[in-house]
Every structure is written in C-alpha cells, then in structure tokens.
C-alpha cells in the first residue's frame, strides 16, 4: 500500500470516529445557512412609525393611511406632544416619526405647499437611510395627488427604473450566496489547520516525521481528504439554500463546484500556513480568526461594498481570495454568469492559491523546531 493512500485512509478512519468533526461538517453548513440566511436580511419592512397629527384633518388621516399602504411602515404610536414623539423614538417603540403641522389639510385644499417633518432614529443607520427614502417617496406620491394635472407632465426627463437579477431587491437573494461563500472559507480553513495542529499537539506528528513518509506525501495526505469534505459541504449548503429560501443558482452548478474548488485550494493553503505557525489548536483558531477570517469577512465585499472603501484598503482587498469568490458565487447565483465572465475572478484566485500553498509548503518542515 502506498504511503499516501495509507495516510488518506487513516484520515477517514479518524474522521469516521470523530463525532465533533462530523457535526462541524454536516450540521454547521445547514445551521449556518438557515440562521445566517434569516439573519442577514437588510430589507426595510413594517418599520414602526409614530404619527404626531397636529392637524386632525381628513388629509392628515389620508397621509397616515398612505404610509401604511406602502407596506414599509406600521403606525405604532400616535403621540400627542413633541415630548411624546421624543419618547417614542428614544424608547425604540418607533423608528421613524412624522409630524403633521396644524393647517396641513387647509393648506393642501388651498393650493398652498404645507411642509411635513420626518424624524428618523439615526442609530439604526440602515433602517434610517432606507426608511427615510421610502417615507419621502410616500410623501411625494401623496403630494402629487393634489398637484394640478399640468405639473405632472412638466418633468422633461423621466427615469423609468427596472431592476434586473433581483427584481424585488430582496437583500436575502444577495446575502445568502455571500453566506455560502463565507461558510466554505471558514470551515475549510479551520478544519485544515486544526487537523494538522492536532497531530502536533498529540505528538503523532513527531511519530509521522520519524517515518520515511515524504513531506509532499504528508501534506497531500493531510489536505486531500478536505477536498472531499468541502464538496460535501457545498452540496449541503446548496440544498439548504434551495430548501429553506428557494434560492437556486441561476447559472451552472457544475461551474460553481469547479470554481469553489479554486477557493478551497487557497483556503487549504491558508489552513496549512496556520498549522505551520501554531503550536496548539487554540493558537490555530486565534490565527485563523484574526489574521484570515475577520479581514476576509470585512474586506471581501460580503457586507461592505469594496467600491466604497478608501484606495489603500481597496488595494488590500485584492489579496483576499474571498473577494474573487464572492463575485463568482453571486454571479452564478443571481446572474447565471458563465466562465467567460468569471475568468477574470478565477485567475487571481488561482494565483493566490498557488502562492499561499507554495509558501506554506516551503515553511512546513519535516523536522522539529
């Protein structure tokens, strides 16, 4: 039996008996897609709104109905003083408040132009920005009802928006492929680095080093099983996306698997690198989280658009394998992109993989320090 196949067989035998590992590989992808998928939702819906109606006219009541009818807001409170508005916002019972001044209805009827006050809880930055835009558009639509017919066609340029790839602008359709990418990165880095450092800790690595097993065989034998593990992971995560959220890649699933292996190549390299740095499993976790996972989560475009980052930080994102993979996954999931478009992401991903893997192999010693 060849040395390499002995080692791979041993990995699977250990794997079969290790309940914790099985849980990580089988339960983690499903749970994470499920929980993060529901959590990673930035849609603005049913925002609690306080309406301070100082006017009490039929127009002011119509306005409140228009807010509710938009689907974005719920009237959660009807305060009767400025102090009460303040309290609703600070207590969090309402995230946005509309103050209708006295004489609002009369002014509308009299062809005047009354004003409205919108108060937004800025501590919830996302809701505030989106909610304010929605509220303003509701108010605009409302005021157009009272505008003379001539005014409605007075605008020379009319923008007609049509949204492609994600017509309902559901943030979940955008976030879940991101969670999918994140999951693959986190689990493969952790499992690889732990698998090698565990042997360091238990002393079995020393026992392996003293056999004629070659360095290349040792590394290949430790990494190869995780290629299979990552394929299982992708299957489970894809199934979870489809089952829980009805999100299915628009593009080729085969292409998704192939390009995912390109990411896994680089993350296994990172896992190997961590295992050459860490002496204990705890250290390996710390190194993985602080030096690789956190930066990749923030700088991959998973949450924050890379285009918004200052130039030096943006330059840094080019080093993140996840940056390229994030575009690949979203492209295949949402747009059905093919290899022709994704090639531009694939080659840097592979280049980083080759660099990390060769650097780690060079660092990996078949001797003790």
């Amino acid at each position, binding site marked *: *039996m*060849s*040395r390499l*196949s*002995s*080692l791979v*067989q*041993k990995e699977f*035998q*250990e794997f079969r*008996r*290790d309940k914790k590992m099985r849980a990580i590989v089988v339960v983690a992808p499903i749970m994470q897609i499920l929980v993060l998928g529901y959590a990673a939702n930035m849609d603005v819906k049913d925002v609690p709104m306080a309406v301070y109606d100082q006017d009490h006219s039929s127009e002011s009541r119509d306005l409140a109905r228009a807010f509710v009818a938009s689907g974005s807001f719920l009237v959660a409170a009807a305060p009767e003083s400025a102090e009460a508005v303040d309290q609703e916002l600070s207590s969090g019972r309402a995230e946005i408040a509309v103050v209708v001044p006295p004489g609002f209805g009369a002014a509308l009827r009299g062809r005047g132009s009354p004003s409205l006050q919108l108060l937004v809880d800025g501590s919830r930055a996302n809701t505030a920005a989106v909610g304010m835009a929605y509220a303003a558009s509701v108010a605009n639509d409302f005021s157009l009802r009272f505008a003379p017919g001539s005014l409605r066609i007075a605008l020379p340029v009319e923008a007609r928006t049509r949204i492609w790839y994600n017509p309902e602008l559901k943030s979940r359709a955008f976030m879940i492929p991101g969670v999918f990418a994140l999951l693959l990165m986190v689990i493969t880095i952790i499992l690889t680095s732990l698998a090698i450092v565990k042997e360091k800790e*238990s*002393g*079995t690595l*020393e*026992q*392996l*080093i*003293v*056999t*004629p*097993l*070659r360095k290349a065989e040792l590394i290949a034998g430790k990494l190869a099983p995780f290629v299979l593990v990552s394929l299982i992971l992708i299957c489970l995560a894809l199934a979870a996306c489809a089952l829980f959220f009805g999100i299915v890649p628009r593009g080729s699933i085969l292409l998704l698997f192939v390009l995912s292996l390109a990411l896994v190549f680089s993350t296994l390299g990172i896992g190997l690198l961590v295992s050459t740095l860490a002496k204990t499993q705890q250290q390996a976790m710390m190194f993985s989280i602080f030096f690789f996972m956190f930066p990749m989560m923030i700088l991959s475009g998973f949450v924050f658009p890379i285009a918004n980052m200052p130039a030096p930080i943006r330059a840094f994102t080019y080093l993140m394998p996840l940056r390229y993979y994030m575009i690949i996954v979203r492209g295949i999931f949402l747009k059905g992109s093919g290899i022709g478009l994704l090639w531009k992401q694939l080659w840097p991903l592979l280049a980083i993989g080759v660099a990390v893997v060769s650097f780690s192999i060079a660092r990996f010693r078949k*001797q*003790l320090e």
Partner: protein
Amino acid sequence: MDAIAVEGLVKRFGTFVAVDGISFAVPEGSVFGLLGANGAGKSTAIRMLCGLLEPSSGRASVAGIDVAADPEGVKRSIGYMSQRFSLYEDLTVIENIRFFAGLYAISRRKVETEAERVLALIGLAGREGSLAGELPGGFKQRLALGCALLHAPKVLFLDEPTAGVDPLARRRFWDIIYEVADSGSTVLVTTHYLDEAEYCATVTLMHAGRIVAKGSPAGLKAERFPGAMLEVDCDRPAEAIAALAADGRIEEASLFGSRLHAALAPGLGDREDAEETVRAALAAAGFAVRSVERIPPSLEDVFIRVISESAKGGPL
C-alpha cells in the same frame, strides 16, 4: 561495526546548550541505556539520532548512515517511540498497525504476517479491535513499541518508554526489549528509572547536556565504590551522616529513606571489619545502631556520587 557512533554531538537552542559535546558508541545487538534527570538532554540527543533535529555540530551515524547528511535514510532503518504515547487514539490496534506498516511501505502481502508477528511479540493478539485510546497505559506503550517494530528496524530508539507505567508492566516491557535485542536489533533506551538501567548492557549518564559516566552497570559500581557499601539503620539518621563523614575510613554517607548508605574506603573489604568500623563510628558519636547490613551498591548510589562529584568540579 557499531550500530550507533556519536562524536562530539552538540545541540544549541539559542544560547541554551541542550546537548554539550557527547560521544559514545553502541555495538550492534546490544541494549544501551541513556540515563539522566529530566532536562539532562536525553530526549534532545535521541531526537538528533533519529533525524528529527538537526545537530548544531558534531557527528553521529546510525546503522552506518550519517544523521546530518541523510536524515531520511536514517528514518528508514530505525524505529522510534517517543516519550508520550503518540499513536492515534481514535484508531483501533490493528488500524494503527496497518497504518504504520503502510508508512514503511510494507507490501500488502506481508502486512498481515508482520502484524501477527508483532501482535504476538507485544502480547496484544486478540485485542486487534480495541480502540488504542481505550487501552490501559502499559498496553498503549506496547502497542507503540509494536508499531515501531513492524519494519524490523536495525536500531530501535525508545525515549522513556516506561514513564508512568506500573512496575509489572515495566518488567513485561523490558522482556520485549530483550527479545528485540536477541533478534539482532540494537536498542537505545532512555529512562530515569535507575532500576531499569540495571537491565542495560551499557549505560551512559547525562547531566546538564554532558556525559558524566559511562560503562556497564557492574563496572560502574566497581569503579565508583571499590570499598564495601553498608546500609545502616540507626536513630536520628540525618545527624548520623555528619558523624560517619567525620570518620576517615568512611568515604561517603547519604540518606536513603529512613536509612543510611555508607561507602567505605577500599581495603576494608572484609565483612566483619567493615560492619565493625561503622558500628564503632556511630557508637562513639552516641547514636543507637539497630542494624548494619552489607549491600551491593545500586546505580542510584553510583549516580549520586557521580553527580555530586561533577557538581564539585571533581573528576568526571
């Protein structure tokens, strides 16, 4: 030819010198003991000989192969069992054996016969399906030994193989070591159990990275204790040491549990003479003597003497 030849071997870690220029030779087919306290440099020395650590300077060859020039060549001809149990606890006995057989590229045809041979040797036949992690300590150590023996190595290195194992299991382990040596392999074993050192053909004592004594157990005793050695049971033994040391005919007195060991100067070989000398010395100082018995010096006596001499900067 010597199975192991070491010449001025040094290992430095930064400014710390773990092994400080040791030299020794081990003839083929013998059992060689490397002794010393924790931190004396035994494990570092053994790791250099196995090609696990690069020597800082000096030369060493194992089974005729230079360890610095061809560490991988050394690895093919040796078996190594490290201080800690370092097999896969989640694998069964037979899975561990098959795994290591695979690493030594033993052909599939031969694996089962080799596994059977080794299982019989280490007395684990019938336990093939047990998980290694669930075996009692002594069994684990024998399994580790078995895995190191699968490829019939020319030289076997055992680093504190019996640490933390009960005396009966230790005895059993040494029986296996003898069998291995009888079949022609050379065994280098480190231990800090000095009673075990008595089983070795040659022992070497390391202290602070250097070799401070070398020889057969019997030879070392004769060399260091040419006179008689007596075990004395008396009252206030700690104070009695001073009284004995004051007597010129008694070279050295030291405390062993509640008793004293007294080493007499050479020439007082006659049984009655020696006992009378000690009784008289103690009686003169006012100590009540319960018994005086002539005993053979143990290796422990030898090493206490050697290390205290080397601490005083005396002859090495």
